[in-house]
């Protein structure tokens, strides 16, 4: 058992519950060389949460600087680095890997009824690539930072003397981490489904991860070549993006956004998958329109590849291409809307249980709704030429990425927390923190929609005095949101030591992961579990004796030992 100063470590405490994946093998090396998808998921989770903290610190520094119109705590060059690093860390180290790596790795095989992902060693390799990429990013920060914006547009990114090459190489490595995770998930879902688990009996979270994996595999290599070309441009002066040498800087943007637009769907699709699970479980009702939701995930994945030019309306892209992209952007909103309608219909006449994960699901509905609708504003060419590069865009993508993806991530984290750790967190503190986050978030970012339509440009260090009040409200909101997350971290960590031991099925979910113990045994299932409708909750009843749900008329649970009390 890993121990510090004679005290049993966290793993050791959880291990007392009974043999499970945390207790089965002990010691730091058993983690470093693990091939267990659950342990790899936990390692990802810890790393990703640290990245969120780092990115969040940059965010707070940005907002603090913007408290006053002139210099507050840093000079303009440093400010450029702050928003660049905030973007790079949040996007490449938190949001893109986020749900698939931290939650998906843990949950996917169990939900599928498999023993592991198809390529466990590749999975571990993906994690170490993530770490290596993160090291490069930190190296870049330590050696002078980056000030190009996370989009690395040429010609500035090829001529600035900040550590662009280091951070770009880091992003390149992280791209491969993402690709290998995608390959692993696609093969797992295609080949490792147990008997009886047909495509349309898979939980929607798996459909979402599958669609995400398709994007990861097809889009990320284009980012790879883009970053390689950027490095070649910087180191070898290849000239491919330099007009003085016959190159084309708009081509860089085409290359960059061909990945980076589908990338936002890599972010949101898993979040939508989590939403399907949360809404269904906490409404105690099967998901409404299962096939529509499942197929809309794949539709979003496909259409997402056709809209990247909506980031380039003012870049020199031709009017012809701009009009085509604008039209296609409206199309991609349709499958997203289909999902929203289905979630709401699921809740209708359901027995809604406002536990913390459900609160985050509600926040998602509201915040992603706003984010998605404002995306339509931005997709409209005639509107975008006015609000491009203003705070309107900043607010839009924070509503979708933060209000959407991050809320779903936190909701999913709370949902699967008992399964991963075997502990229950405090609902009181959970709801309190959720409320704080919601209020803080809207204060931070709604004001930014207003700022944007009034003309405040993004990435600007100074601003006219009449914007000060908006900025100060926004900064206050940022501090409130941060307080909410620190509170969340506090009670979650506390639960590891003092939380009530979790039953196998604390929430009443019908998907397979609730059939094995909390935490699960090392090999997930002794034998392939019985597969049925993943949203059939008709036989699931609450049992006061164990403080959790049980499934009636099942001979024995597929996992070793089941929950406490069995």
């Amino acid at each position, binding site marked *: 058992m890993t121990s510090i100063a004679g005290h049993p470590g966290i793993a050791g405490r959880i291990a007392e519950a009974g043999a499970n994946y945390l207790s089965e093998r002990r010691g730091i090396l058993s983690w470093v060389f693990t091939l267990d998808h659950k342990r790899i998921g936990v390692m990802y989770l810890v790393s990703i949460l640290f990245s969120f903290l780092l990115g969040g610190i940059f965010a707070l520094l940005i907002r603090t600087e913007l408290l006053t119109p002139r210099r507050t705590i840093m000079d303009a060059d440093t400010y450029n680095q702050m928003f660049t690093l905030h973007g790079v860390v949040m996007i490449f180290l938190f949001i893109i890997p986020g749900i698939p790596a931290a939650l998906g790795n843990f949950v996917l095989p169990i939900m599928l009824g498999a023993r592991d992902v198809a390529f466990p060693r590749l999975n571990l390799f993906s994690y170490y690539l993530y770490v290596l990429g993160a090291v490069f990013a930190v190296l870049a920060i330590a050696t002078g930072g980056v000030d190009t914006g996370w989009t690395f547009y040429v010609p500035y990114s090829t001529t600035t003397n900040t550590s662009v090459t280091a951070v770009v190489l880091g992003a390149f490595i992280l791209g491969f981490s993402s690709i290998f995770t995608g390959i692993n998930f696609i093969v797992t879902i*295609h080949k490792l489904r147990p008997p009886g688990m047909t495509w349309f009996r898979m939980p929607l979270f798996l459909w979402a991860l599958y669609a995400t994996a398709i994007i990861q595999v097809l889009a990320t290599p284009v980012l790879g070549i883009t970053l390689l070309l950027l490095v070649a441009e910087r180191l070898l002066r290849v000239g491919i993006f330099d007009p003085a040498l016959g190159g*084309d800087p708009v081509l860089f943007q085409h290359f960059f956004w061909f990945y980076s637009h589908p990338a936002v769907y890599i972010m949101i699709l898993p979040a939508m998958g989590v939403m399907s699970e949360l809404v269904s479980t906490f409404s105690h009702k099967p998901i409404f329109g299962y096939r529509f939701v499942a197929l809309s995930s794949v539709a979003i994945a496909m259409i997402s*590849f056709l809209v990247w030019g909506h980031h380039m309306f003012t870049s020199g892209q031709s009017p012809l291409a701009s009009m085509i992209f604008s039209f296609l952007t409206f199309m991609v909103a349709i499958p997203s809307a289909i999902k929203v309608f289905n979630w709401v219909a699921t809740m209708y006449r359901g027995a809604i249980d406002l536990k913390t994960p459900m609160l985050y699901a509600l926040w998602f509905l509201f915040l992603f709704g706003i984010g998605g609708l404002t995306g339509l504003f931005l997709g409209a060419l005639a509107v975008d030429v006015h609000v491009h590069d203003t705070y309107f865009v900043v607010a839009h993508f924070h509503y979708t990425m933060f209000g959407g993806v991050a809320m779903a991530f936190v909701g999913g984290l709370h949902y699967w927390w008992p399964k991963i750790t075997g502990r229950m967190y405090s609902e009181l503190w959970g709801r309190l923190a959720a409320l704080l986050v919601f209020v803080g978030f809207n204060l931070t970012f709604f004001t930014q929609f207003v700022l944007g339509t009034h003309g405040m440009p993004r990435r600007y260090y100074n601003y006219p005095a009449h914007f000060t009040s908006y900025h100060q409200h926004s900064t206050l909101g940022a501090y409130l949101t941060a307080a909410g997350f620190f509170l969340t971290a506090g009670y979650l960590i506390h639960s590891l030591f003092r939380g009530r031991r979790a039953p196998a099925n604390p929430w009443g979910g019908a998907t397979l992961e609730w059939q094995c113990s909390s935490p699960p045994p090392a090999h997930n299932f002794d034998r392939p579990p019985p597969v049925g409708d993943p949203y059939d909750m008709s036989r699931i009843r609450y049992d006061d004796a164990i403080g959790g749900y049980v499934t009636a008329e099942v001979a024995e649970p597929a996992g070793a030992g089941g929950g406490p009390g069995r």
Partner: protein
Amino acid sequence: MREVPAQPVEAGPGQGRALGHVVPLRVLLGVWAALVALTVVTIAATRVDLGGLNLWVALGIATAKAAMVALYFMHLRYDHPLNAIVFIAALLFVAVFVGIVMLDAEAYQPTIREYQHQTVTPGR
């Protein structure tokens, strides 16, 4: 744990499918000969002036060669169709990418030429 002795290629337990397909040697050699022949044809075709069509002839021959490599050397012909779907999907997405970017690049070339015309004209 017990060892399982070597199993014949054809008998995969439980599923009745073979562990891959053995491509006949004459097929491999035939494909190779065709590839070399088509290389010669490609070069010969450049000596014939077909204007803009030359590019498409060359690409067409290259596509035929690539198809033969994929179907026989990479045994896509004998594999689970999903493998072929994956490969074709990748090609499709490249086509979408190249197509749309070229569409845009063609459309803004006049703007660039105008700019070059204005700025690089030697003075009078």
